[in-house]
């Protein structure tokens, strides 16, 4: 399905997608957080892009670990450790591999989500990135189990992530900075759930 060169390509397009959405993500964070999510993510992916040439020839695990470390060391805030850990964990799952398939990818999603939950101690329904990640992962697993093709599986994930983002508008935040708002957080979509959807779309667009 995907070799290390394609992973690098996807990471490049993730960087572009984050840049394009940086203002939007920041505005979402202004409403219920501290006005920086897009700035944070863009800072992180700028470093990722700069470092990619140096690891492009390596195995997918090494590439993703580097991405994770870059994010951890440049993003800061909550999303830095969370996304950083997610990429590092995903990379850890495919150490040494120069090519991966759908099974690998789904296992990497599990690992990434596990990392986010280990660090952030959140569960579904707390108005965080998990509210996009969890339904996306489940939808992709279901689609894969039905034998769908890569693009279809990813599209199912994107659709579920988008639905998850919509769902975040309806609930009160109980984790992250938006939790300080209590009831006032209702009506606003979660920035982290949105940025995850942006990243997943960048993956889907590669197929």
């Amino acid at each position, binding site marked *: 399905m995907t070799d290390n060169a394609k992973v690098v390509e996807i990471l490049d397009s993730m960087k572009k997608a984050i840049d394009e959405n940086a203002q939007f993500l*920041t505005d979402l964070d*202004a409403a*219920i*957080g*501290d*006005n*920086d999510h897009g*700035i*944070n993510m863009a*800072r992180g992916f700028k470093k990722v892009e700069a470092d990619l040439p140096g690891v492009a020839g390596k195995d997918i695990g090494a590439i993703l670990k580097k991405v994770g470390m870059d994010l*951890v*060391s*440049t*993003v*800061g*805030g*909550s*999303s*830095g*450790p*969370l996304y950083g850990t997610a990429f590092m964990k995903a990379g850890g799952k495919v150490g040494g591999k120069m090519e991966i398939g759908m099974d690998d990818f789904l296992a990497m999603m599990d690992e990434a989500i596990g990392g986010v939950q280990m*660090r*952030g101690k959140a569960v579904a329904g707390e108005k965080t990135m998990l509210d996009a990640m969890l339904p996306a992962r489940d939808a992709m697993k279901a689609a894969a189990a039905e034998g769908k093709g890569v693009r279809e599986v990813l599209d199912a994930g994107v659709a579920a992530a988008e639905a998850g983002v919509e769902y975040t508008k309806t609930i009160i935040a*109980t*984790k*992250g*900075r938006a*939790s*300080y*708002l*209590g009831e*006032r957080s209702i009506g606003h979509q979660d920035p982290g759930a949105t940025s995850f959807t942006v990243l997943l779309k960048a993956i889907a667009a590669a197929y």
Partner: protein
Amino acid sequence: MKKIINSVELVEEQMIEGLCKAYPQYVKRVEGTNVLVRADKKEGKVALVSGGGSGHEPAHAGYVGKGMLDGAVPGAVFTSPTPDQVYEAIKAVATDAGVLLIIKNYTGDVMNFEMAADMARDEGIEVDEVIVNDDVAVDGSLYTVGRRGVAGTVFVHKITGAKAETGAPLAEVKAVAEKVIANVRTMSMAISPCTVPAAGKPGFELGEDEMEIGIGIHGEPGTHREAIRPADEIVDMMLDKILADLDFTGDVAVMINGCGGTPLMEMFIVNNHVHDVLESKGIHVYKTLVGDYMTSLEMQGFSITLLKLDDELKALLDAPADTPALKA
């Protein structure tokens, strides 16, 4: 956005450099990092490290010096510093007596500092932490991430720093920090927003006669918004919330903290009524700090912090401190 800066990309770097150039007698920068440590490392005592996003100046680097912090880690504006930076700070200040991290209770800060602590422990450095959560504006129940850490953090720096300076072991230093945290409460308000340079526009908007009550130090929304009222009524409302949370009968320290854009004149007007109210309730003010201690860029507003004091805390609050932003 109208700011006295060179470019949004250089804000943190030039702020750090400008601070180091202003105070070479107090702080120096750890090469290749954003970490600021005491100009003269003090051995044989627990080292204190704190930090958080930039934009809260003089916090945190302004509190590096004798009797307060050993290291400060500024992140991007309003963004927790990354683990590698915190780790560099820990390494730079670590002594045989160990390191105590003073973390404000934000998901990001807690995660980044704890990752750094893990890295340092892997290197054999003894690291412990306390988490400051003094903001009574937000629900501290178990179903949230708990209260935010705000201006009360400065009292934690001051008092814990004085304890560390005595050469007390890590457990005792930590215990004093936790005593301060248990006894300190803050409530904030703002009449104007602030603009994160990279964002280019204010984090929120307030109408010509509106104020935000319970605002956070990153411009996070507070408990509610209402029409601006006379200062004394605002103080009453804020003190009600603080005093409902903890019995402050006895001696207290007061901090009237400006958010960065607030004239001192207004802070003194606030202080005037704070003292009157406290006195009327049998609360005796032992010491008062008025000024910009934990700011939010150019935001206009203030916070009131009360710290309940016993003899130990009084002595440590009065103990010598020599830092750029706080001297005692």
